[in-house]
């Protein structure tokens, strides 16, 4: 297997990666697709091929829509390699991965489609068992049909939180409360983008339907909540917050936190190519041309790992990248017509995005913890107060926090604390996150066993 050379290596089997592979195959390119999971679909269409009908019904039609793409992919003739962890990508297209053994493939081009991850939600108590991401709980539902055993509290903001509440209601799960942190300022911020939202009325009406179902269900909803914190000794015991100026304490053993998703940029950052701070989505994103190519390298990025756009837009981006790659490799002469069609689709699917970004912009206090005792780096247990003390001593950016206190040096390699650390330092220094910069990410970007390299 070592040393395979192919036209295109795709990393990630979510909508962007699957669609790119299909498009590239249709244009006659040879394609190898690598994915960390053992099933295709990414997180959004997780377990799409094996989920039983009842579960699909609960998850809704946007999930079931993944079936068509999965089927197209299976027919595409892509060399699919699931259960593989990519740990290195070079700018000239060499990809190293492990799958119980080590292997290398070389793509004349490489498309990185590593998707999104939930934005960290650094509040007091968020490291306790029983506090987890709402997206994580949705993965448990998609992948295992797992439901909360007791009344669950959903807290934060963003479409995924309301979607999960809707799915739980359909499945008959007991929701103790929804604690919504969307603030009044969010509606004001979102107003100038309302026209775009109306133009993207399909997405807007879906969202409104979810909220209406939640309202009808009788589940207590605390709107405009702030100052979230979790109490507990060895596991979650309660969620506390402020609501209409008053402190509230809700007993709960399972609290699902969510305040949006952000690009999972670990792979693209590890290439050393340029990224910039997106001040609307409050995250890093790779700098690409309109097709997704990074500089003049062999590397492309598509989907949520390039900036949050959602599943359907991700698929369109994947296909656009494949078109450009085919042209670059001389496999397609004229891509203008197909390109125009795909760009039109992409524009349609992203019309509502500025509205969502503005409305569900997470509260500053839930991104940059004002409390000194909140854990920011969960792996090495570095607190907000410690990071601020590093800045007092002259620490300028995330990479220096490593020397000060091992921040970002645990097994997650800074994936989970990176955005928080950047914003925290930016606030403490009084400068823009762009100036503070991001962790320098180096391969291997996944833990590898020495045994994988021994025959």
């Amino acid at each position, binding site marked *: 297997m070592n040393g395979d050379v192919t036209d295109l290596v795709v990393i990630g089997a979510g909508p962007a990666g699957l669609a790119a592979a299909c498009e590239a195959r249709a244009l006659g390119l040879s394609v190898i697709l690598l994915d960390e999971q053992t099933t295709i679909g990414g997180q959004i269409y997780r377990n799409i091929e094996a989920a039983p009908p009842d579960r699909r019904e609960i998850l809704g039609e946007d999930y079931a829509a993944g079936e068509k793409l999965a089927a197209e992919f299976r027919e595409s003739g892509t060399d699919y390699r699931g259960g593989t962890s990519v740990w290195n990508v070079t700018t000239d297209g060499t990809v190293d991965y492990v799958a119980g053994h080590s292997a290398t493939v070389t793509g004349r081009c490489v498309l990185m489609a590593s998707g999104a991850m939930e934005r960290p939600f650094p509040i007091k108590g968020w490291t306790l068992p029983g506090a987890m991401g709402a997206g994580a709980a949705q993965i448990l539902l998609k992948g295992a049909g797992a439901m909360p055993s007791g009344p669950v509290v959903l807290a934060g903001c963003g479409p995924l939180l309301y979607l999960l509440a809707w799915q739980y209601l359909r499945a008959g799960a007991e929701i103790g409360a929804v604690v919504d942190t969307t603030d009044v300022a969010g509606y004001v911020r979102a107003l100038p983008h309302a026209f775009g939202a109306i133009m993207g009325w399909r997405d807007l009406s879906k969202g409104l339907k979810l909220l209406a179902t939640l309202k009808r269900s009788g589940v207590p909803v605390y709107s405009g909540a702030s100052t979230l914190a979790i109490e507990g000794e060895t*596991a979650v015991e309660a969620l506390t917050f402020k609501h209409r100026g008053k402190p509230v304490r809700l007993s709960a053993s399972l609290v699902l936190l969510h305040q949006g998703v952000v690009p999972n940029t670990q792979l693209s950052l590890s290439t050393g190519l340029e990224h910039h701070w997106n001040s609307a989505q409050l995250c890093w994103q790779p700098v690409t041309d309109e097709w997704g190519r990074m500089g003049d390298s062999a590397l492309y990025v598509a989907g949520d790992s390039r900036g949050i756009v959602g599943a359907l837009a991700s698929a369109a981006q994947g296909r656009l990248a494949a078109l450009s790659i085919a042209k670059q490799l001389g496999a397609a002469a004229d891509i203008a017509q197909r390109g125009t069609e795909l760009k039109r689709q992409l524009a349609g699917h992203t019309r509502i995005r500025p509205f969502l970004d503005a409305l569900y912009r997470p509260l500053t206090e839930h991104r940059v913890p004002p409390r000194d005792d909140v854990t920011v780096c969960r792996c090495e247990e570095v607190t907000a107060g410690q990071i601020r003390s590093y800045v007092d001593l002259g620490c300028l950016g995330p990479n220096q926090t490593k020397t000060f206190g091992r921040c970002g040096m645990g097994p997650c390699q800074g994936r989970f604390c990176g955005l928080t650390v950047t914003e925290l330092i930016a606030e403490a220094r009084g400068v823009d996150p762009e100036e503070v910069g991001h962790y320098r990410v180096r391969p291997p970007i996944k833990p590898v066993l020495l045994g994988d390299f021994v025959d």
Partner: protein
Amino acid sequence: MATDTFFSIPEPSAAGRVTITFEGEPLSVPAGISVAAALLAGGVKTFRSSVVGGGPRAPYCMMGVCFECLVEIDGVPARQSCLIPVREGMAIRRQIGAVELQFGAGEEA
């Protein structure tokens, strides 16, 4: 209200069941699900202890990003239980603190 498990799996197991062990105790779980999902539904609340303060930890992201779900699987430490499917006979243990280098151990399963 305290419950014995954070999650349960009410569906019948279409793909059958397998038996794994956690800290030596057998658990019968649906085939095809992740180790992390199986442990959560099996009533495991603490997967590991943190490396500095020794605090209890459990999965946070379920998609391979946070590394909170690290456990020892079949003698190999620091495995991401959210990414690994259950297999008949799998022996899983809590990961306590930081991993020590073990020479001669950790044969790949």
